[in-house]
């Protein structure tokens, strides 16, 4: 029933009883479980969003301190031309597209569908790994060129942001592997597609977060100043 109607109801009145009758009696265990996993994922993504939001706020505040040197701007700074980050982003985008393809592709023939699914899940894993390896290479390049974690706060934030983002992606592999296992074991299709659907959400979410982080980390000092002014720092 409508949540507004529920919240505005007067539970102490006896005519409130129609609520009981309007309860969806067709609900079954599987629906409850799928809905629950979805709800839990929504709340989990809220938690992760708060984590990234708070670090971003501290980043913007810290960016206005005199010792902060952005990683983009003049040509000698590493992210004035962030080609490596673009390549990594492309990998994550591909992973995100491919996993969506795995979840939505329809085939008339079961063996074709299976082959597609296996291929798509493998490619999701592969592109995600390539993204993570790419991020590690960026870390290596940055450290080699003197932008160590304990150097300028902009460097520290880059390592912090990308590290936490990478860990979340790596955590997503656990869910993905579970989907693969249930696929291999021929678990029931509805459950499989529901779980795969949740993985799709997660991958899309991490891609969007990464693009926002990418924009934030490669912005110029002038941009930081404008955003900080808008935030009142």
């Amino acid at each position: 029933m409508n949540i507004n109607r529920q919240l505005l109801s007067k539970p102490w009145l006896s005519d409130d009883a129609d609520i009981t009758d309007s309860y969806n009696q067709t609900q079954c265990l599987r629906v409850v479980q799928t809905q629950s996993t979805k709800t839990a994922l929504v709340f989990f993504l809220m938690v992760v969003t708060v984590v990234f939001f708070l670090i971003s706020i501290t980043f913007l505040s810290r960016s206005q301190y005199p010792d902060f040197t952005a990683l983009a701007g003049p040509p000698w700074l590493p992210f004035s031309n962030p080609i490596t980050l673009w390549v990594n982003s492309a990998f994550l985008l591909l992973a995100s597209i491919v996993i969506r393809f795995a979840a939505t592709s329809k085939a008339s023939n079961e063996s074709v569908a299976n082959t597609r699914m296996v291929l798509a899940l493998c490619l999701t894993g592969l592109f995600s790994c390539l993204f993570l390896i790419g991020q590690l290479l960026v870390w290596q390049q940055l450290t080699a060129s003197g932008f160590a974690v304990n150097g300028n706060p902009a460097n520290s934030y880059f390592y912090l942001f990308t590290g936490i983002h990478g860990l979340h992606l790596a955590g997503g592999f656990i869910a993905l592997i579970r989907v693969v296992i249930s696929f291999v074991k021929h678990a029931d299709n509805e459950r499989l597609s529901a779980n795969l659907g949740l993985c799709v959400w997660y991958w899309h979410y991490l891609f969007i977060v990464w693009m926002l982080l990418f924009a934030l980390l490669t912005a110029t000092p002038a941009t930081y100043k404008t955003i900080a002014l808008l935030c009142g720092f």
Partner: protein
Amino acid sequence: MKEIQPIADDHQPSGFFAKYVWSLDHKVIAIQYSVTAIFVGLIALVLSALMRLQLGFPDHFSFIDPSSYLQYVTMHGIIMVIYLLTALLLGGFGNYLIPLMIGARDMVFPYLNMLSFWTYLVSVIVLIASFFVTGGPTGAGWTLYPPQAILQGTPGADNGILLMLLSLAIFIIAFTMGGLNYVTTILQARTRGMTLMRMPLTLWGIFIATILGLLAFPALLVSAIMMLFDKLLGTSFFMPAILSLGENLDYTGGSPILFQHLFWFFGHPEVYIVALPAFGMVSDVIATHARKNIFGYRMMVWAIVAIGGLSFVVWAHHMYVSGMNPYFGFFFATTTLIIAVPTALKVYNWLLTLWRGNIHFTVPMFFAIGFIFTFTHGGLTGLFLGNVVVDLPLSDTFFVVAHFHMVMGVSPIMVLFAAIYHWFPLVTGRMLHTGLGKLHFWVTFLGTYAIYLPMHYLGFLGVPRRYFALGDTAFIPDSTQTLNAGITVAALIVGVGQLIFIFNLIWSLRRGKVAVANPWQATSLEWQTPQCPPVHGNWGDNVPVVYRWAYDYSVPGHKTDFTPQNKTDAESLLPDKGGL
């Protein structure tokens, strides 16, 4: 009708370990949480006794030095707030009551639930391990402010602080696993007829507190991770350029204030993470033992929601002395005072529930009424501290200590005791001893007043908190020492008084009076299970169907003075009112 609840049979336990150790049953996990939390809580209680010994009788105890004193202060605070109160209220009572009160067989993710407890246990072990490492636990104060938290000179600056931050991070992971479970279970696994507005207020309190926790704990996680970076990798998130013990450190330009903002963005909602479940539970205890429906149910629900929302925009009232912009102070003082409105509504509603109720002076009711006193008292001093100009002279004095102990120490503990005395028969099948319970109540209630009321006066006199010794401080009269000694005596009596409770728990577990089913004649679902205590799966063959809210007490025309939520009108009305 089809079965709409997750069936618990797939984890039907067999054997001792599966049943009591690696259990997936929410009731066993709740007990595991509770026992662990009470155990660490007792450690924190001993630490507070050690602090009081030093304050009341300085120079008498050679084993307490300035460093160890600060370590006691820190560990007492952090254990009580996070590892006891949060864990016991949400991990303990949340776990036990959510599925039973909504008519479910278990949490929706039992495995995650078990994982949550074991992760919590790991966080507790890591925390306790810090007592045994070189340098001991951190002595940075429970707020762990940098730069001093990680600099030499502060006790535990090498290993203690690392273990503390690590333990907090692990705790937050555990809480997130548990919290996702609580929220999802309440939203998705309610039985037929259990609409949101038919839920007992206990569930509303736990529900909103869990959402607060899920949104607030990330702030602590972020600050812990960033401080670990500062400590281990030499970054300067929070660390300014600093000269420490004559040595110029490598840190540059970080902002300790940034940490304070992050910490209190978690820290203030934390007050309500503890308070909201307590508000909910005390509402149910009062309604049940006054045999009267809760006054203003919807208002109570919206007050919980409003307090939860407002708690995210008051955090900087903990930082008035940090040199913030006065306009900022004005904003936070305003929001702080606004939060008093829904809180006061709740207090009025509790009183109005008691008004002309058929009050049964049971032990849970004693504690619930005691809570109304202590909470009102602590809330009123909060109005003092919420105002910037009044806060400035009182900041970091014993007035603050007295305030927050009344409002978020004693008050939730009073509710916890009320809840334990109330739900003990459900959990164990036996009643706690009433005489011992009343003795425990009076020692605790009067004792805590004897501790914290005089502490306000110490604060007025300007006695600072967290000082090992006052030394020759001209503006503090000598008589404060007498007062301090008196407070210590009261604290020791209250501390020892808790042994009555522990004894009662252990004794009643074996020899307590066997509880009849639903001994308090309550209406909420947890008391309506086919077996008391409920067995695995909670509901036997059929989950209950709910026909009414949880507060049908003393309804005219009903057969009894309580009508359980799962009774139809036909079953509950007197024959001439349309019943059978």
